[in-house]
């Protein structure tokens, strides 16, 4: 069979992704009719919280692809070169979901409904000593500027990294000096991205976007925990696309060895996520201070108990036991199944981050949120496939490509 070096989007794939997007749009309209258009502020908040949870989760997941590219670039890793175009294509979704997510966040912050971010209620903040103390960080202009700068920064630096990679397709590097220079410029841009990433995803952005929903409560571990959640889902997403392409006779140089390493990332970061999740939980449980336990009361003991423990089983116990053996990580079926499960599990994790504060008295109907999530999945499939089709699937002229072809674990 001839080697197929460029991806053409299969008709069926395109139809499915369009159908999913349509389904997501229908879910949004349905939720708008049942909740969003209501005059009750709590019901309105339920609509916006669903959009917030889905768009933030999927934005951070696709952005994790660019983080993966940048850390492997900084570490001068070569093993990922055989499938590097896949995370590159996934990261092309960042500007698209970024615009959606930014619009939703700004609409919530500047809207009249203060149920989700109650620190936006200026009248309330004056009577609230804790919130007025946090005014320097939790205020509308800062939120807006941080959100816009962050999303623009991820998009621009991601675009630059993709440009650097695609530049080589038509003009191979002739001499050793040129190759060294190329690797150096890659390293510099990747380092810039990592700096931005650590200032945003690993610290300030989850505090602003998610933790400020429970504005009285805080945890310094929160951002790392969010990062671990989205990074493991991002790796699962990369693995899914790699397996999909492999099943369709693309990526002829990717073999069990590369899949094994992707599986290792999924396994290791599931355990890392649990470590952070448990550290946050245990310190609060042990100290037993009311200001802190207020966060876990509705989650671990209240009406969100089911989601909370289900998510713990899916995100820790299942990957620990199923992905532990070498054979499981080298099996396409097992890795694909676990990837879907992990993405769903961390989506549930975000669900229990957002909703207990927004809807404390009843668990909202999760089917609407799942419908919207499927819409975002369709969007990711559609844009990623478009981006994959634009460039050859192997960055043939990259100096490290040979390392990936002979990769052996």
């Amino acid at each position, binding site marked *: 069979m001839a080697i197929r070096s460029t991806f053409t989007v299969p008709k069926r794939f395109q139809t499915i992704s369009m159908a999913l997007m349509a389904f997501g749009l229908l879910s949004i309209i349905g939720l708008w009719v049942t909740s969003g258009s209501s005059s009750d502020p709590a019901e309105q908040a339920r609509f916006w919280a669903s959009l917030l949870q889905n768009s933030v989760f999927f934005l951070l997941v696709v952005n994790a692809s660019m983080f993966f590219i940048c850390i492997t670039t900084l570490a001068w890793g070569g093993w990922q070169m055989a499938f590097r175009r896949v995370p590159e294509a996934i990261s092309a979704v960042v500007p698209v979901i970024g615009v959606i997510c930014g619009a939703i966040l700004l609409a919530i912050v500047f809207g009249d409904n203060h149920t989700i971010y109650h620190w936006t209620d200026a009248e309330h903040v004056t009577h609230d000593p804790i919130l007025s103390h946090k005014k320097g960080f939790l205020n509308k202009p800062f939120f807006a500027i941080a959100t816009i700068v962050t999303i623009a920064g991820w998009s621009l630096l991601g675009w630059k990294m993709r440009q650097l990679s695609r530049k080589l397709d038509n003009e191979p590097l002739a001499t050793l000096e040129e190759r060294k220079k190329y690797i150096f410029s890659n390293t510099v841009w990747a380092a810039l991205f990592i700096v931005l990433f650590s200032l945003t995803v690993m610290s300030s952005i989850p505090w602003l976007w998610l933790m400020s929903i429970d504005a009285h409560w805080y945890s310094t571990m929160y951002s790392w925990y969010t990062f671990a959640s989205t990074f493991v889902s991002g790796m699962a997403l990369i693995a899914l696309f790699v397996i999909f392409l492999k099943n369709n006779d693309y990526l002829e140089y990717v073999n069990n060895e590369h899949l094994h390493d992707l599986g290792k990332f999924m396994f290791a970061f599931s355990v890392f996520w649990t470590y952070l999740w*448990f550290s946050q*939980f*245990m310190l609060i*449980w*042990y100290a*037993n201070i009311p200001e802190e336990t207020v966060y876990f009361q509705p989650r671990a003991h209240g009406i969100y108990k089911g989601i909370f423990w289900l998510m713990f089983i899916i995100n820790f116990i299942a990957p620990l036991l199923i992905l*532990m*053996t*070498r054979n499981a990580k080298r099996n396409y079926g097992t890795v694909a199944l676990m990837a879907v499960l992990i993405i769903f599990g961390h989506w549930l994790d975000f669900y229990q981050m957002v909703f207990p504060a927004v809807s404390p008295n009843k668990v909202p109907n999760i089917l609407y949120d799942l419908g919207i999530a499927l819409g975002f999945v369709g969007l990711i499939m559609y844009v990623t496939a478009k981006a994959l089709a634009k460039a050859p699937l192997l960055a043939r002229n990259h100096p490290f490509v040979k390392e990936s072809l002979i990769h*052996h674990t």
Partner: protein
Amino acid sequence: MAKKKFIVGNFTDEAVLFPAVKKVRRAGYKLHDVFTPFPIHGLDKEMGLRDTSLHTAGFIFGITGTTTAVSFITWALTIDWAINFGGKPYFALPAWIPVTFELTVLFAAVGMVLTFCWLCQLAPFVKKDHFNPRSTDDTFVMALECTSATNDTEAKQFLQTIGATDVTIETRETGWWLGSYATDKMRFEKN
């Protein structure tokens, strides 16, 4: 102790060693071991070694550590010497997780080191016999074991034709310092 005869050859290039291992196995000689100065990816597969059982041992040691920690702390803090810490329940599982984790790691690590030594038959003050000291420096040393079916001179010539240099016939006393990879002895004997 019984004596065994080995045919030992040196290789200086990986690109020669890999096909040589394949040819030796195809010709039906009993490959005792290949000694290399550094780990070579894929050589274990080429030599037909089975997957290591070290990870299974590690899992069992780890589970043992978990059980030990949980059962001992449970016994100590709920039955033998129950103390009320800040109104917490006696069975305060979250507080014990760090200790349980550490004991799991400790048991798994120590157990796996000892298992590794036992599997490779390493011990303090025991010198392993690897036929040629250059295998710790710059050459790959291949040792074939002579069985009742092996013609020594033929085997020696065979090693030379597939690229080995300094081929010698050596005799060693059997014992655990030689290693005992040969679980399928019968296949190589004359019948």
